[in-house]
Every structure is written in structure tokens, then in C-alpha cells.
């Protein structure tokens, strides 16, 4: 079986499959997992208020959020059920709140309450609103950590990840499919297309009538972790009828950063994750309306992710998920338009794919003792002082803090390089450890990491890549010992 795409959906499916006997491979064109939308979203565990009750989005959100929390417990990925306020900024917003309340209740979302302005500001001081819908069951999770943890768990349990391997074609064959890639061809009896923004194009290799998927970019700004001390709940403005996304939100992260965004703009380029000046300014301006005390000077970074939308630019809004098989190719499943609540839904989609679509494959579960959960490592910085002292005494390299902003130890950096996906990029180290994600953006820790890897792992300057072979960090050595050098 081949899965195309190692984003959160593909990695979730891989994780479920890794508990079964069989040969499973994931083909991913980037040089790490989760490098597209899966790492570049708000990291929200949705409660289920935003979706029509009979939709797939609602179903997979409600099932997914439970599974996600369970998986994250198993994998040791941190989760925070911090709650959300959907705020009304004017009277015109009130019907929207009411609609979300009813819709949420119909989906089985617990503890939904409309609250007054005073109650809202008691929950989240500084918020400007006239009323709000309090959604206690909404939460956040680091999306990159979750995707990596699931993929590495799958890899440690036998799923093969072909990274840097782009699918270039799929043809039906006698016993299934031949998946052509930039690194050779794979045979698969069953094919799952979880290629996100490229899923529509790939689906049309087999089914010319498969729907179009439209790229829609969402830019974000990241605020310093100290901001999370003051802003600890998600705050969303009530959705307006014409919006293609959910509006400019303020979302805390588990680590204490605060995210502003996402924006919404259909783009032509499915890889175009550049940030723009006007959107960046707009994010700050609109977020300041919601939170007038927003400390604009504490922006530390920006990123952008691309949604895979099924609705074209002239229509906007959201389309429901499409899980597509055709009578001609019953053993190919295409997951199309998996945008928000894609992160939340991914585990449930995975279970559905394996239980439903793959039920015909009669997969045999592995014996329990043949499965070992590969837990995401503890973040040293989050441990208690006693535990930190104990670990440092046992393992000296845990006393060496390499990333000062995020408190990442040398041990964590070295461990990150020993990952089961064999990823050796700077971005790979970054997303596995949080180093280079702090307020100085690697200004201090990057040279330290470079020094450690040159000294202790014999890396040369040409071994450092940001995300893959096309993004070399450096241009070689400054000075080389060669036959012309003379001893002084």
C-alpha cells in the first residue's frame, strides 16, 4: 500500500496502518513530514461548532478531537484545552453566535455558553467585544510536533517513508497501481492520495473528473512567548457570511507564543508560501481591534500555509471533505479538500480509511508485543527543577543549553538527528526540538548547533541544509587546508 503525502493526514493513516501486518510506504516530496499546511496552521483542536451537523467535517472533527487527544497522550505530545471565545463586536454579529451555538449543540459540543462582555473579559482580559460564545472544549496542539510524532511512531513500527520523493504519475496495473516518482517506481495494491494541495491534480491521473483543489494562502504572525502569559485563550471574531476562512484569530500555542491569523487569499501557486506586507499589516490591525493592548513590538516571526480548498475563488466559503473512490479504481482513495478542521479530523480520517476503505484488504493486526509506541521526547524546558537537576546529573549533555530562547539542550539536538525518518536538515532539528523557533530566530543557537555538528558529528559546511538539497545553508569553508597551505 502506498500513501502519497506525509502531512498530518498521511502520517495519521501511516500510524494506524503501522499496527497491522503488511507493507506500507509513504511517498513525500519534501525532505521531512508535515512540511506544507500541516506545520503551518493555527494548531487548533476544534470543538465542532463551525460545521453543518450532517457534514463530514463535523463528523470527523467530533471523532477526531477525541482520538487526537488520546494519541497525543500516548505519544507524549502536549495538548492544552484552553477554550475559545467567538466574539461579537457589534449587534450584527449576534445571529452568527447564535447559529454557532445551535450548530455546536447539534454536533454534540458540550458546555457551550453565550457570555456577556464582562464574563468574556473575565475569561480573557483585554478582549473587546459586546458578547461572546464560550467554547470550553476547544484546544491547541503544536501541529508540527503532532505530525512528526505520528510519522516517527509509524516509521518506528515499520512504515517506510520515502522522503524527497515526488509522485509524478500513477497508472493502473494488473494488481493495483504503479506509482512513478522522482526516485523510481513503486507498486501498490492500494493507493491513498493524501497529497493536500496537490491531491486534486493527482486524483485526476486516475479520474479525469476528480474535483479541482484551489490553493488559498493563510499568513500568520507569531508573538513572543511572554505574550502567552497575558493571552491564554483562542479568540475568534464571529464569522461573516462572505468569509472564505475563519477571520483573523488570536490563538495561543502550548508553548506560550500567540499566533495572529490566518489571512485568506486564493493564490495561483500551490507552493507560494510567501508573506506579504499588506496582509502582515492587516493582521496586526485587525487583531488590535480584538485586543487593543496587543503588543505589536513583540512580533517575532511570520509564516504562511496553503489550504486545499474545494470551493473556487468566485465562490469562497468552505466545501465539505471529499473522500473519493471510483468504480474504475476501487482501490484508490483520494482525500480532497482537507482544510480546517483538518488537523483535528486527521486521526478520525485515518481510522475511517483503515476501517472502511481498507476493510476489503483484510489487514491483520500485529500482536500487541510487536508494537512499541515511539513517544515524543519530553521538552527539557518543561520539566520540574528537580527533574532537570536529576537528568543533568545522569546525562551531562542535558546541562548544556544550546537554544537559550527555548531552553533546548544539546542532548535534545543530538537526539533529534537520530530520528527514524533520517531527516538531517536544520528545519528537521528545529521542528523536533523548538530550537531556532524562539525570539532570536536561531541567532544564537544556529552557530552553536553548527559548531556541535562540525565538532562532534564531523559535519562540514556543505552538510547543512535548511529544508533539503535545494536549500544549502552555507557556501563551503572560509579557509581550507590544502596542499598550498604552509605551516608557520
Amino acid at each position: 500500500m502506498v500513501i502519497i503525502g506525509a502531512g498530518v493526514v498521511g502520517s495519521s493513516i501511516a500510524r494506524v496502518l503501522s499496527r497491522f501486518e503488511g507493507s506500507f510506504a509513504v511517498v513525500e516530496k519534501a525532505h521531512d513530514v508535515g512540511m506544507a499546511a500541516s506545520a503551518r496552521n493555527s494548531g487548533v483542536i476544534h470543538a465542532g461548532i463551525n460545521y453543518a451537523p450532517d457534514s463530514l467535517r463535523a463528523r470527523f472533527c467530533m471523532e477526531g478531537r477525541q482520538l487526537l487527544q488520546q494519541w497525543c497522550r500516548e505519544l507524549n505530545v502536549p495538548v492544552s484545552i484552553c477554550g475559545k471565545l467567538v466574539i461579537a463586536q457589534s449587534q450584527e454579529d449576534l445571529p452568527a453566535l447564535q447559529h454557532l451555538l445551535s450548530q455546536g449543540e447539534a454536533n454534540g459540543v458540550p458546555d457551550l455558553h453565550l457570555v456577556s462582555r464582562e464574563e468574556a473579559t473575565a475569561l480573557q482580559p483585554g478582549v473587546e467585544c459586546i458578547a461572546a460564545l464560550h467554547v470550553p472544549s476547544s484546544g491547541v496542539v503544536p501541529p508540527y510536533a503532532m505530525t512528526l510524532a505520528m510519522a516517527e511512531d509509524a516509521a518506528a513500527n515499520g512504515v517506510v517513508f520515502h522522503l524527497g520523493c515526488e509522485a509524478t504519475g500513477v497508472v493502473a496495473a494488473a494488481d493495483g497501481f504503479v506509482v512513478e516518482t522522482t526516485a523510481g517506481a513503486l507498486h501498490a495494491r492500494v493507493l491513498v492520495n493524501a497529497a493536500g494541495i496537490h491531491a486534486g491534480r493527482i486524483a485526476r491521473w486516475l479520474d479525469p473528473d476528480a474535483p479541482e483543489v484551489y490553493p488559498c494562502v493563510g499568513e500568520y504572525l507569531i508573538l513572543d512567548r511572554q505574550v502567552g502569559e497575558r493571552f491564554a485563550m483562542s479568540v475568534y471574531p464571529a464569522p461573516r457570511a462572505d468569509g472564505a476562512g475563519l477571520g483573523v484569530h488570536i490563538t495561543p500555542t502550548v508553548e506560550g507564543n500567540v499566533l495572529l491569523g490566518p489571512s485568506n487569499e486564493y493564490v495561483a501557486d500551490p507552493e507560494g508560501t510567501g508573506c506579504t506586507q499588506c496582509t502582515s499589516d492587516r493582521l496586526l490591525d485587525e487583531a488590535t481591534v480584538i485586543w487593543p493592548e496587543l503588543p505589536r513590538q513583540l512580533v517575532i516571526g511570520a509564516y504562511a500555509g496553503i489550504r486545499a480548498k474545494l470551493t473556487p475563488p468566485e465562490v469562497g466559503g468552505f466545501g465539505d471533505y471529499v473522500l473519493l473512490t471510483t468504480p474504475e479504481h476501487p482501490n484508490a482513495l483520494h482525500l480532497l479538500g482537507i482544510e480546517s478542521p483538518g488537523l483535528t479530523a486527521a486521526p478520525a480520517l485515518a481510522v475511517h480509511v483503515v476501517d472502511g476503505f481498507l476493510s476489503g484488504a483484510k489487514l491483520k493486526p500485529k500482536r500487541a508485543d510487536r508494537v512499541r509506541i515511539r513517544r515524543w521526547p519530553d521538552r527539557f524546558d518543561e520539566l520540574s527543577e528537580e527533574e532537570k537537576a536529576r537528568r543533568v546529573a545522569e546525562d551531562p549533555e542535558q546541562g548544556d543549553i544550546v537554544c537559550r530562547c527555548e531552553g533546548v539542550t544539546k542532548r535534545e539536538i543530538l537526539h533529534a538527528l537520530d530520528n527514524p525518518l533520517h531527516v538531517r536538515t536544520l528545519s528537521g532539528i528545529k521542528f523536533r526540538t523548538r530550537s531556532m523557533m524562539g525570539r532570536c530566530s536561531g541567532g544564537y543557537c544556529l552557530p552553536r548547533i553548527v559548531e556541535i555538528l562540525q565538532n562532534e558529528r564531523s559535519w562540514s559546511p556543505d552538510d547543512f541544509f535548511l529544508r533539503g538539497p535545494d536549500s544549502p545553508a552555507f557556501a563551503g569553508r572560509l579557509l581550507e587546508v590544502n596542499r598550498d597551505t604552509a605551516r608557520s
Partner: protein
Amino acid sequence: MTLRARETDVAVIGGGPAGLAAAAAAADAGARVVLIDRNPHLGGILNQCIHDGFGLHAFGEVLTGPEFAARYVDRAREAGVEVHSDTLVAELTPERELVCTSPGSRSRLRASSVVLAMGCRERTRGMLRIPGPRPAGVYTAGTAQWLTNMENIRVGRRVVILGSGDIGLIMARRLTWEGAEVAAVVELLPYPSGLPRNITQCLEDYGIPLHLGHSVTCIRGRDRLDGVTVSRFGEDRRPIPGTAFDIPCDTLLLSVGLIPENELSRRAGVQLDTSTSGAFVDDRYMTNVPGVFSCGNVLHIHDLADWAAEEGERAGRAAASHALEGLATGGRSTLATITAGEGIRYVVPQAASKGAKEVLISFRVGAPDQDRTAEVLADGRALASETLRRAHPAEMVQMTVRCADGLNVDRLEVRLQ
């Protein structure tokens, strides 16, 4: 060496010029001093500043950064300072307890006085919100300097530098000497922010174009940088439409500002001044947290390491006095506030002890100017004044206010007449 839970008189956090000078001064004053520095070798940022221009004021010599640092390292060692390198202070409490971590050891140190001398970090692309994708090849100038001078790495082949501050100018020259092509230096302001001698020696000597009143409006290249878009900016600090041009390059260095590194201070309850991003201090360099002092770049960004070291000496002496004798911490009524008035960007210290016979004030002007008089006013009366033949925000100015009978006003204001 392992630090176990123990006490000392003065703990100095940071072994750059300010911390080294503070430690030596405190030890010379008779205090037991522990100096903690996260790098393997003392000297802080000076170890990578292999250019010269240091020591003109402190030693009457022209030294490189490492040579300057070595002088202060020697002083600290001769004074008997206990040095812990490769050690990071992970936490500082308001009760002046430090949690220190180093390979193999995590321990606590309690000090009667703490001197904050952690220096600064650089403003990043993310803080500037420079549009475009996020390719490899974008570095802050100081990080590029470390990679070049300490790690023997060539950061790139064709370089654009944003910001005409000294670090950017120095790196323009350094990279040119190392065979890179520096295509341009781009500066938002209509005047350069670095020292005039660096404009000469780093740009004019090599014919490197300097685009004043310009900035980078877009980064280009998905995986590795392949160019930047530069536009002329108006007085409203917005790009002027139709003025954009592209400069092909594979490396962008950012020399766009330094930020005092006060996260430890903030968590310890030290009040910070938004105009400096450093602590509020009085004339003894003590912060609002009793026994916690601040000096050097973590207090306010210095243009010369000589001044940072001198400031460190003053803070170190005060820290020792406090540890050995206890300084009066009488609160607001015993302090006169010092504020920045017309034409002044910031002042340090922001308060002075009443009764003080002499108060040294460091400040910067808000814009370049010539033949202005800077004065320190109290109730409309000038207690000190100095003519600045040329004043530039990049050059820190110091003035001493002398009160024979001791300072007895509530407020001092520094302003340009």
C-alpha cells in the same frame, strides 16, 4: 567546575566587556565575585569582533575585540574573580538566587548583589516582517560574523546587507576580503547609522553602493535566496511606488538593530524602560529589584565596548558596596527621576540618588544634528550643559552633573536647547 548551592557576595551574569569589568571592579573593592558566562571562552561578543577600533578610550590603543577582551579577562583573573564558563543562568529570582546550568551540573547560587551583563541579541527578519518566502541565506549580521570568524564558514557568495549600522559595515568589508561580492548596503534612514570611519573603510574603499532611504521590500527565492527587492522609502516610512528594483544575491545580512537581552531580568521582576528595552536604573545602576544591578548592552545598546566596560566598572563597584555594606534602598522619595526631553531619545540612568555629588548621564540624540547644546535641567535651571559640535543617534553622549551640596531636586530633564 561544579557550582553547588552556595553563597557569594556578587554574581555577575555575562562575561563580555561590561561583565568582566564589573566583576574585576567588584573584586577589587573586596567582594567575593562569581562570574558566569555561557561561552567556552570569556569575552562575550568581543571574541568574534576581530576588527579593530576598540580600546581608544580605555587604553589609548587601537585594539581588536579579542585583544580588548583579553585585557579585561586578565584584570578579572588578577582580581581573583571566580569564573564559570560554559554555564548559562537559566533563572534568576527576585531574591537574587541564580539557577545555573552547565554540562553535568545544574545548581543554585545565592548572591547579595547580582550584576546583569547579558548583552543583547539582534533584530530579526521576523521582527521586521520582511515579506517573501523563507529561503536559506538570510542571516543577522552578528550571526554571520560568528559563523565566519569562529566557525570557519562562508555564509554566501553574493551579499546584500540591510542596515548601515557598524556590524553590517564591518561584515561588508570582512566578506569582501574573503572573496564574496557585496552587492549593496541598503539603509532605510536618509543617513547612515554607522560611524563615518566605517563608511569610508568598509564601503567607499571597495566601491560598495550604499542606498540611503531604501529598504528591502521582498525576499526572493523559495529554497535558497536568489535576490531581494529594494524600494525607496518616503518620510512616512512606506515604500514609494514605482521605485522598486531587484538585486540578485544569495545572502542577505540584517544589521537592523540590537535588543537588550532582558528575558531573565523580566522574569525576575526587573522593570524595563521601553525607550531602551533595558532596565530602569538609578545612578548606582541598581534596578527596582534590590541588589540587582545592570550594565552594558543589556542596559542600553552601546556603540563602543570601551563605554560598556566603564559602565560595568561603575555597576561592579556599586554591587560590591551593596553586598558589603548595603546601599540605601529608600524608595522613590530618595531618588530624582531623569527623563529624556526635547531631541533626546533616551537617558540612562533614569533616576539619581538625592544627595549625590556627581551623576553621570548617558544619552543619545534622536536625529543627526550639528552645533546643538545639550543641557540637564532641574526646575528650568541648567545644571550642566555641553555643546555638541556634531550629534548622531549612533554616538552615545555622556555628561556629568555636579552638585557640590548634593542633588536636591525631584526631577532632571536632559534635552537639546
